[in-house]
Structures are given as C-alpha cells and as structure tokens.
C-alpha cells in the first residue's frame, strides 16, 4: 500500500520542483521520509496577507492518495479557516461524508485525482478569500464578518511576525 503512495509522492514532488506554482514551495522535510512535507506559502498579492511567508507541514497517510493528507501551519495564523493550533480546515482536505464543518455540497472534496498542488492552490485562495460560513476559528470568523478593518490590522501583524518582525 505504501509503495504506490511513495511512488505518487515522489512524482508529485518532482512535478512541483520542475513546475512550481507561483508563491509556493513544497517538498519532503528530508528525502528519507516522503510522508512528511514542509511548505512555504507566500501571502497572495492584493490581500491582507500579502508579503507574508507562512511555513506549514503536510502529513500524508500510508494509503495516500486514496485518503487526503493533513496540513498545519507552523507559524501564528489568524484566519477563519485555520484552527488556533494551525490546522487547515478546507473542503479539499476532506472526503465527502467526513464533514466537520458542513461544507456546501458544491465545495471541492478530496478524491484520488486531487494533488498536493491542488491543495496548496486552494490554501492560497483560502488566504485570499476566507470563508466565514465554515469557521474553524470563531473569533477570526466574527472579526472577518463584523470588523473587517480590525481583521486587516491583525493580518498585517501576522504577516510581520511571519517575516521575523515581532510586535
């Protein structure tokens, strides 16, 4: 089982290295273990997270790609779809039926033809367009909905911290 997962992960790593999507770097922490990756995601331009560089880890199950990986930011984040411990909560990381947030039925779900690249691109769009309806961080969802200016300020601080400037 882990054999096909390993082959697939090696192919995906190669693909991401040869043809990296803009603002995303990702690969195994060390090449001895292809089931633990780290990623760096650049905050998308023209959004409140612009300029930030956010590190994250991606952990793959042994039956990948039949079931999805888990993803967690390793830096402080403040976002409606990221739990306070950094875990990312978007529909593509869940198989249908495994539905903690009651996603809309049209939301994109995990299936074996999805990929790490698709996940990372979804995370970039999640940063650009938070979904307050399926909030993993209730405080962030409320602030995004009711006090947008305050949310932008908080996001700016997160961006600074990600670059190593404390506040």
């Amino acid at each position, binding site marked *: 089982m882990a054999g096909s997962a390993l082959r*697939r992960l090696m192919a995906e790593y190669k693909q991401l290295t040869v043809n990296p999507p803009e603002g995303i770097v990702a690969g195994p922490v060390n090449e001895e273990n292809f089931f633990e990756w780290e990623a760096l995601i650049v905050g998308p331009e023209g959004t409140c997270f612009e300029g930030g560089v956010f590190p994250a880890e991606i952990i793959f199950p042994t039956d990948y790609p039949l079931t999805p990986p888990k993803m967690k930011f390793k830096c402080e984040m403040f976002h409606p779809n990221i739990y306070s411990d950094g875990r990312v909560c978007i529909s593509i990381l869940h198989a249908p039926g495994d539905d903690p947030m009651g996603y809309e*039925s049209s939301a994109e779900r995990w299936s074996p033809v999805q990929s790490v690249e698709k996940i990372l691109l979804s995370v970039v769009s999640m940063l650009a367009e938070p979904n307050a309806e399926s909030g993993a961080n209730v405080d962030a969802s409320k602030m995004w909905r009711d006090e947008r200016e305050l949310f932008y300020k908080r996001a700016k601080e997160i961006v600074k911290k990600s670059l190593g400037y404390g506040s």
Partner: protein
Amino acid sequence: MAENPDNPIDEEIERSTGMTRDEAILAQQDRIQKEVEDTNPLVSERLPLVVLKEEYQADPVYSKKIEDMYASFPYIRKTRGDGNCFFRAFGFAYMEKLLTDKAELHRFKETIEKSKDTLIALGFPSFTLMDFYDTFMEVVNQIEEKPSLSELLATFCDQGMSDYLVVYLRLLTSAELQKEADFYQNFFEGNRTVKEFCSQEVEPMYKESDHIHIIALTSSLGVGVRVVYLDRGENQRANHHDFPEGMPPQIVLLYRPGHYDILYGE
C-alpha cells in the same frame, strides 16, 4: 479524564479500558475494521455456494433462497465489504473472463486506451489521472501476456494494486455520468448536479455503489452484468436484473443489501 464525570457509563469505560468514551469507540471501530481485513481477503478463492448458506443458519428465508440457487450458481467468490465491493467484484469477474477471451480482451484494451482521452477532455488532471491509467493498463497487459488466474487473484488481493484498479473504474463511471449528464440527471432527486454527485459518491474511495453507478460503468464499457438479488423480499426465488438493460450478461454478481460478491454458473 472522563468526558462527563457524572456519567457512570463513561466512568466504567474509563476504569476498564483506560480510555475516554470517544477514544474507546474509535478503538473499537479500528478493531472491527482490522478484523474484517484479517478474516476477509479483498477477493476470495472460488468457494462452493454452501459457504453462503452457512452464514444464514438460523434464517429460513435466506437459507431457502440460497438452496434454490445451488443448481444455477454452484460457486461464489467473495469480496471484502469496504464500500468498494461492486467495483472490485466487477473488475475481478470481468478480467477473469478476459483470461480466456482474446477477442473481448482486444476490444476492452482499445476501450480503455480511448477512455484516457475522454477523461482528460472532461477536465480530469492528466498528471494524477495517468498514475491510475498506467496501473490499470499494466494489469490489462499482464492478462494479455500471461493469462494466469492465480496472478490475477494476487493482483486483486494486493491492496495497493487493487485499490488503484478500483479508482480507475470509479473514474470511468464518473466520466460516463458526466458525458451523458442530460440522461443521468433524471435519476437525481433534489437539485444535486451530476458533477456534484460524481465528486461526492463516485470518485472518492469507499463510497458504496447504487444502480446508477452500475448502469454507468456497464454502459461505458459495453459489458453486460447480471445482478442476482438475495433479500428478504416475498418472492420465493432470488430475482435478477441485467445491466445495462437488454445487453447479454458476461458476468454474474450477487447482491445482498449493502454488498456485492461474484457468482459462477459452472
């Protein structure tokens, strides 16, 4: 810590297992899953149908119906009940037939070669799609070069290979539903679109199959399947239905509520 210290059941669970109630439930689900995996291969050897009757010792309705099937279907091959059983049963039974039918194998190979382009045209990402297509073709080529039943069985019992075959059959099913969306849309209640149905009920692993999956896959491949229904219905004998309607069946599957196995006529 017990989740609810006032609840005596939670306390009892914690005292006897050292786990909270939720942890204990998850651990039990894992044990059951493990037991299913240990006792049931993904695809079994061909067994006399009497093994099925042994599962229903105390059940006169099922026992009678199974006895009536002995003459027409003396053998059964069981599949593991993991939500993929229709695809695995169909895949094995049909490929087993291809071992001895060169003309059909030739036709099938051409169909599969063409299917890749159909899938890409429908918008499936070719990079990940090819992973499954290549594995599927590898098995088709293996049948062509060395038509061995024991090797085919070994392939289907290898979790990694077997699941990849299931994924490709699921993709073929999804492609057929999307290509003929105008027709299949009539099967859905509510306002779920064909595309949504495919991404929720067809493409993901472990999702059980319904009639619509069977109609789509058999139509897409041009492979007739007879499904024999064994249930608690009033009829004395097990009913059957052919998919797609009117096509002579090449293989026979047994349906019991929630599960598919393979039946053999001789």
